[in-house]
């Protein structure tokens, strides 16, 4: 009896082990897609054709820090509502929101607040069955002991990338798209709030350039517009898009140069984009972004 059972178990494990070579983790983790919304073969294909990093929790935070703006907790989304995000869509979207906030906290080394945010992120990630890719214990240890901020940043970003890849590979790219959208919405919100409090030419220009990122994001989201949550999100983002529409971005052409700097091959781009944005247009973007973002992170 035991011999038969052993044969069955071993055969099963061998099949799983072979499948793992193609990075399909779902079967070994015993996951189903009950928290997703089914397969998206066409959208899956489309996702692979679009850009990898529409939004990054690092770059906007780095820009804000680089222009000398001090840290402010008031820009961050409250973790109080996290229990009310009870659909896979709202969990994925707010995972992106808190991911961007985590990037901002890490950028300013605010480790005391990191634990609160990673606790919520862990819960939301578990809610869409990707919690196993979020290295909560290591992040908590690094944050609690206020040690190795570089590792804290690396593990945070890497965890989000792994969750994103997993969702895409397992026919849940709709949730991946929502996560990406959450990161973008919180990133533009952070930038516009900082701009409102401490106007800065460089930041204004970067906000204007988000016109192109929003266009890419809408291309991704449109693959899933049949899902009500995403259709509503697209409608909200179109309110922001309407404020971006009058902005023009022109390109001054130039040839790239290669130089060696500190022993590293460095390519200096001599093309340059110029953003034409008026104070009034910027004000419209700031106000609309604030309204849309605050609506989106409310109880759903």
């Amino acid at each position, binding site marked *: 009896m*035991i*011999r038969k*059972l*052993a044969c069955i*178990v*071993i055969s099963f*494990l*061998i099949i*799983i*082990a072979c499948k*793992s*070579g193609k*990075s399909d*983790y779902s079967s*070994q983790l015993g996951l189903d897609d009950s928290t997703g919304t089914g397969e998206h073969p066409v959208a899956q294909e489309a996702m692979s*054709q*679009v*850009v*990898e*990093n*529409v939004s*990054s929790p*690092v*770059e906007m935070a*780095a*820009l804000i820090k*680089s222009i000398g703006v001090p840290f402010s907790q008031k820009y961050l989304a409250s973790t109080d509502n996290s229990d009310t995000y009870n659909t896979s869509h709202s969990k994925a979207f707010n995972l992106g929101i808190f991911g961007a906030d985590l990037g901002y906290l890490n950028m300013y080394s605010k480790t005391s607040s990191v634990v609160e945010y990673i606790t919520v992120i862990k819960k939301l990630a578990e809610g869409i069955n990707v919690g196993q890719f979020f290295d909560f214990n290591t992040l908590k240890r690094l944050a609690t002991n206020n040690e190795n901020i*570089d590792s804290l*940043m*690396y593990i945070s*970003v*890497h965890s989000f*990338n*792994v969750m994103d890849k997993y969702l895409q590979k397992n026919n849940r790219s709709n949730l991946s798209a929502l996560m990406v959208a959450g990161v973008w919405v919180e990133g533009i919100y952070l930038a516009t709030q900082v701009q409102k409090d401490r106007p800065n030419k*460089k930041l204004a*220009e*970067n906000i204007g*350039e988000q016109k*192109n*990122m929003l266009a*890419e994001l809408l291309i991704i989201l449109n693959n899933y517009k049949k899902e009500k949550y995403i259709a509503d999100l697209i409608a909200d983002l179109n309110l922001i898009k309407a404020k971006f529409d009058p902005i023009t*971005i022109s*390109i001054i052409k130039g040839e*790239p140069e*290669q130089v060696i*700097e500190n022993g*590293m*091959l*460095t*390519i*200096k*781009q*001599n*093309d*340059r*984009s110029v953003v034409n944005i008026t104070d009034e247009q910027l004000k419209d973007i700031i106000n609309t972004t604030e309204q849309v973002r605050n609506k989106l992170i409310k109880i759903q």
Partner: protein
Amino acid sequence: MKKISLMFLLAFFAFTYMAKAQTEAQKVEICSGMAGADATYLKDFQVVLDAAMGNEKPPQAKYSLILQKDTKYRFTICTADDSPGKGYMQLWDGEKIIGTTYDPKTGREFKGFDFDCQKSGVYHIFFMFVDGKAGNAIGILSFVKKL
């Protein structure tokens, strides 16, 4: 005794599976570390390509990225120890090549390059293996600083 053997086997298979998954993560971490202490990891690209058959064009993997203006990025490539071919990566802006870690004409190689981006937009990176060999490599995109 049989029960113990069965449990041992189960543990062995579980460990093997976990170890494989962990190795991929470790490779990414090591390659990210190669980018240097001044670089912040943003994205990794795990590339496995077959060898070119006959006279066909060498296989390549393509990814599209958004890079932001006034930002210094670092592109790093790490070829796996057991890879038959040496991996290299190229950065393209539309139809124009911006940078490469290997120049087939001169044979010059770099473990990576920095890119001072002055124009936000969609860029493409291509991964290939020298002489169209099969290969296994990891590419890392890192953020260095705002310019």
